[in-house]
C-alpha cells in the first residue's frame, strides 16, 4: 500500500529537508519501517530501542491517533496519510 507520511519540522533536517515522504506497507509499523529504510537517522528519533514509538512521539492515521486504533499494527490502505507529530499539550 502506498502511503504518504507527513513529517514535522523537527524531523525534516534528517529527511533531506522534505515535509513528506512516500512509503509502503500493510500496517502503520511497516510504513514506518519503510520510512526508516529511506532515512536511517529517523529510526532513532522516532522509535526507542524496543521498536515501539518514543513516548513523546504521536502518530496519526488519517487524523486519528493510532493509540485509539491498533497502534503500530493498525492496517493501512492505499492512499492513506500518516502524520508524525511531537506530543505537546497546553490548555
Amino acid at each position: 500500500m502506498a502511503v504518504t507520511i507527513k513529517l514535522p519540522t523537527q524531523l525534516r533536517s534528517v529527511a533531506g529537508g522534505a515535509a513528506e515522504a512516500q512509503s509502503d506497507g500493510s500496517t502503520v509499523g511497516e510504513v514506518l519501517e519503510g520510512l526508516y529504510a529511506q532515512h536511517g537517522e529517523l529510526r532513532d528519533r522516532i522509535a526507542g530501542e524496543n521498536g515501539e514509538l518514543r513516548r513523546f512521539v504521536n502518530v496519526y492515521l488519517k487524523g486519528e491517533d493510532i493509540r485509539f486504533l491498533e497502534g503500530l499494527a493498525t492496517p493501512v490502505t492505499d492512499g492513506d496519510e500518516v502524520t508524525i507529530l511531537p506530543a505537546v499539550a497546553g490548555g
Partner: protein
Amino acid sequence: MPAEALKCKECSTRYPLEARYVCERCFGPLEVAYAPCGSSPEELKRRIQAGPHSLWRYADFLPLDCTPRTSLPTGWTPLVRADRLAERLGLGEVWIKNETANPTHSFKDRVVAVALARAVELGFDTVACASTGNLAGAVAAHAAYAGLPAYVFVPADLEPEKILSAGAYGAQIVGVRGNYDAVNRLCMEISGERESWAFVNVNVRPYYAEGSKTLGFETAEQLGWELPDRVVAPVASGSLFTKVARGFQDFIDAGILSGDVPAMHGAQAEGCSPVAQAYAAGTAVCRPVKPDTIAKSLAIGDPADGPYAIDLARRTGGSIDAVSDDEIRAGVRLLAETTGIFTETAGGVTTAVLAKLAEQGEIDPGERVVAYITGDGLKTLDTVRGSFEVAEIEPHLEAFQRGVVEGTPATSALREAGQGAAI
C-alpha cells in the same frame, strides 16, 4: 537565576534560548534551565519584596532578558483562609489561592504574560494559542494590551461564555470542529508553517510553562515564606501541577524556603482522567482518552506532562484523583457557599478532590493545605443552572410576606401558584 538554556526533560540535550519546544533527538519536551543563583536568600527576598504587586516581582526566577515595562497587571492574587470550608471538611487549615482575581479571571494570565513577553523579545509579530477556553481569553486580552494581532483556536463546542469573552478583545477566534487534542494538533502543524507566529503553548511553550511557577512563589510568600504541607491542584496537561511544585523547589534551592516540596495532589474529572487512571494503574504511561466531562478547561485527552505529574505525585506522597460531574457541581457549590468564591468547573474538580481526600482521612487536621482555584464560575454558568430557584413575586409587601417569608421552603407558595421561576 539567569536562564541559560533550553534543556530536554528526557535526554538533557541543551539548546539556545529560542523558540523551540521539542528535543530534536528524542522528541522530549524542553524546559528552561537556569544558571546557579548568585545572590543570598536575603538579597533575593529583598528584591522580591521591593518588586511590583504582580508576577514580575519574581523576575529573578523567570526566563526573560528584561522585565516588561508594562503588561496587564497579573498575579499577586489573594490567598484566602477558608475556615468555613475547613470546618465542613473536618480539616484544620485550608487556604484557597484565588486565581479568578487575574485580569481575565484565570491562572492563564500568568503563563501568557511570560510567553508574550518572551515572544516579543524573540521578535514574533503575532500571538496565537490552542485553548480549552481560559487561555483563549488570556491570549486575546494580553495581545490587545500589547497591540499584537491574535489568533485563538478553540474547540467549536466550547462554552459560549469563553468564546464571547475572548472575542470581545478583538482576537480572531477560530472554532475548530473537534476536541482540544485536535485543536492542539492543528496548531502544531500551523506553527510549523507560520514562522512569525508565537503559539504561546506550542513553540514558546517552555517560557509559557514557567509562568505557573509564580503560583508556588506567591503561595509561599503569602504564607510568610513558609511551605504548605499539602497542595491540591487541577491536572489537564499536567503543566500547572508540575510547575507549582517547581516554584516551591526553586525557592528551596535558592535558600529562601526550608523544608520539602509539599505532598502534591492532582485533580481530574472522571470524564477525562488519563493521568489519574495511569496513577491508579501504577504506571507512568498515560493512555489518551476522548474527553466527556463538564470540566472542559481540563479536557485534554492526551496530556503531554502526564508522566511528570504522576512522578511528582508519587515522589511527594501525593496522589492523582478523579471525580464525577455530579461531584464537580457539588464542589463548585461547596466552595461558593463556604468561601464566597465562585469557581468554574475546574475549581469544582479541585474542591471535590479536596473533599474526597478529607473524607478518606488522607489529610491530618494539623496540616496546612492549599487548593488552587484556577478559573471563574462566570465562565461556566451552566454548571449552576437549575440548582436553585428564584422567588419571583409581585411588587407588594404582602406578596413578599406570603411568597418569601412564609414560604417553606422559600418558594413553595410561588410554585403552587405556578409563578416560581426555575433558573
